[in-house]
């Protein structure tokens, strides 16, 4: 995919990062990306895949071992000061000072920027008005994460870097954080987000790069990735009694694959659930079989990852 450089928020070429040591650790092994302005771009991968290192290379917090990064058309080496004004960052774990209030914290961060939003405005943007004068130490995890987000937003950035913004949060807090990210995007902002939650990636990101062991192994929109790598929809049928010969269903539906899992359980794979399901039911009836349960499973990004690597997203990666 080619993006006009004028429209690219981030462009990086063959980025690598090797941490010195014995043996040296190659955290990023050649990543090339283009991220369009106004897009929410996700980097999805398991823990230890090199997501954070990739992000920090783009944030200008790490210097690449080789390769180049351009953010908003500029480089960190030459225009670092300008870029800091235009980007907002939320690190994976930052312990803000517990003894400061929300307002004091936001005001401190606001003071760093040439052009900053009014602290009160930002606090209402992250819906923390009622906590404005509470100490950070007294906030819940979700509220703390929203303060971190407010610190990232207070400089009125064009580009937001978020490193696993919802890790460890309860479902309601996660939804609140998602809403804020979507609001930022609706206002024309660009977002680069890392996550190991596929629901988060599917919900927020228009474009995704799946990263494993320091490399991009697939890239595209969530729909495209699922279609390409997720495999087919599965239908699992349980009969009350041991089922008939599996051949009974083949002429009836767009079944690409059929296997017998147990004496009265069948697993079917189909390209079209809507077409296949009624036919499966009809075939069972005409064969005189009573169906106990039917389960269907549509492919997700998890299946994409498993299909590509043979491992699950939440598995720890072995080795260095």
């Amino acid at each position, binding site marked *: 995919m080619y993006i006009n450089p004028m429209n690219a928020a981030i462009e990086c070429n063959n980025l690598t990062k090797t941490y010195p040591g014995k043996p040296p650790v190659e955290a990023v092994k050649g990543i090339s990306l283009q991220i369009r302005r106004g897009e929410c771009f996700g980097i999805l991968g398991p823990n230890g895949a090199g997501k954070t290192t990739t992000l920090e290379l783009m944030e200008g917090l790490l210097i690449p071992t080789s390769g180049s990064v351009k953010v908003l058309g500029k480089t960190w080496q030459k225009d670092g000061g300008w870029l800091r004004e235009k*980007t907002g960052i939320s690190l994976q*774990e930052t312990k803000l000072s517990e003894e400061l209030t929300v307002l004091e914290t936001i*005001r*401190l961060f606001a003071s*760093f920027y040439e052009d900053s939003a009014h602290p*009160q405005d930002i606090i209402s943007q992250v819906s923390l008005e009622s906590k404005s004068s509470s100490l950070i130490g007294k906030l819940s995890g979700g509220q703390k994460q929203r303060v971190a987000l407010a610190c990232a937003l207070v400089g009125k950035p064009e580009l937001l870097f978020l490193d696993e913004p919802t890790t460890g949060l309860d479902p309601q807090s996660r939804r609140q954080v998602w809403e804020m990210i979507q609001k930022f995007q609706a206002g024309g902002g660009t977002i680069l987000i890392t996550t190991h939650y596929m629901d988060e990636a599917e919900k927020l990101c228009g474009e995704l790069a799946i990263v494993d062991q320091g490399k991009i192994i697939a890239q595209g929109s969530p729909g495209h990735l699922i279609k390409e790598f997720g495999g087919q929809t599965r239908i699992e049928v349980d009969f009350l009694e041991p089922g008939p010969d599996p051949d009974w269903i083949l002429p009836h539906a767009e079944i690409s694959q059929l296997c017998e899992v147990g004496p009265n359980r069948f697993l079917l794979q189909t390209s079209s659930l809507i077409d296949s399901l009624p036919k499966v039911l009809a075939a069972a009836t005409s064969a005189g079989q009573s169906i106990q349960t039917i389960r269907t499973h549509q492919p997700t990004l998890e299946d994409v990852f498993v299909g590509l690597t043979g491992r699950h997203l939440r598995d720890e990666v072995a080795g260095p």
Partner: protein
Amino acid sequence: MNPNPWKKSWTSGPLAQLVYTRLIEFTREPQAVFWVYFFPLLMAFSLGIAFREKPAENLKICLVGNSLSHAKWNLDNASGFVFSNESREVALGLLRRGRVDAVLESRLENGENQPLFHTDPTRSESALAKARLETHLAYLNQPTLKPIPELFLDLGGLRYIDFLIPGLLGINLMGGGLWGVGYALVDLRVRKLLKRFAATPMLVRDLLLGIAISRFIFTAGQVVILLGTSWLVFGVQIRGSFFDFCVLVILGGFCFLSIGLLVASRATKYESVNGIMNLVMLPMYVFSGVFFSAERFPEMLAPIIRILPLTALNDSLRAVMNEGRSLSLLGFEIMVMGLWTAVTMGLALRLFRWR
């Protein structure tokens, strides 16, 4: 774009905000307030009272013999003595055991009561008691004799508390620089706040200045409280110029701030910074003459002890506070602190890491 622009005054600038947030953070930690402000006072009080100077003790005299003649000697007017009456045997026994310093006997000689001293030749108090009583009796017999005028030495600047307070100021400046700056920075680094700050347009200069200024404000408070209280309670004074004193406090503070910065330039764990701090501070606690004079250490250690920054600070503070010396006479100490500041600050800025 923004209908509600925020920045209006210098108080919303980064340096002012960094100083302000550090100050309020500090005041919200009662423990920190205790250690910074009350602990030094506690130390000054307990040591000042334990080692306060007592006036010379009264000499103990046992009187033996005719009590009428004792009265004639007008002993009530003799100051610096405690008198008691005993029989001759008991009195001599007390003298032998060192319980009294001398025995004054009234003895009948040629029909008149004459004084006779019993003293212990091995004890100077005994000789002193005899000499002073003898003088008293001599004046009694010759009313024309006048005592030679006597002036007591002004003890100001020579008492233990006068020695102690500059030393306590010194260790507080050292602790403030190392803990207040070094530990604070490592704490920011461990909490990843330093990295978070690095991702904003804030300048390193503002961060370090902010920490330094807020530290100076705490330290100024510390110095005022410690000095004010020891002046009120113990009468400790600054005999030299107050300006010179301030220059030394600022120079000392800056010197330890630089050392703190160097200690914190790379450390990424609380444990490692604790270790380095102790390594740096302990020798100075021991050798730099905080609680007792550094001159008590062997001669061969003196050149090393003299170039420790805390020794330079303590010695120069004592010279200004107790001897009223001016800075121009303290070139060596000022040079020692200046060199430590320049070298450690230079290294610290070179080695400093955000993460």
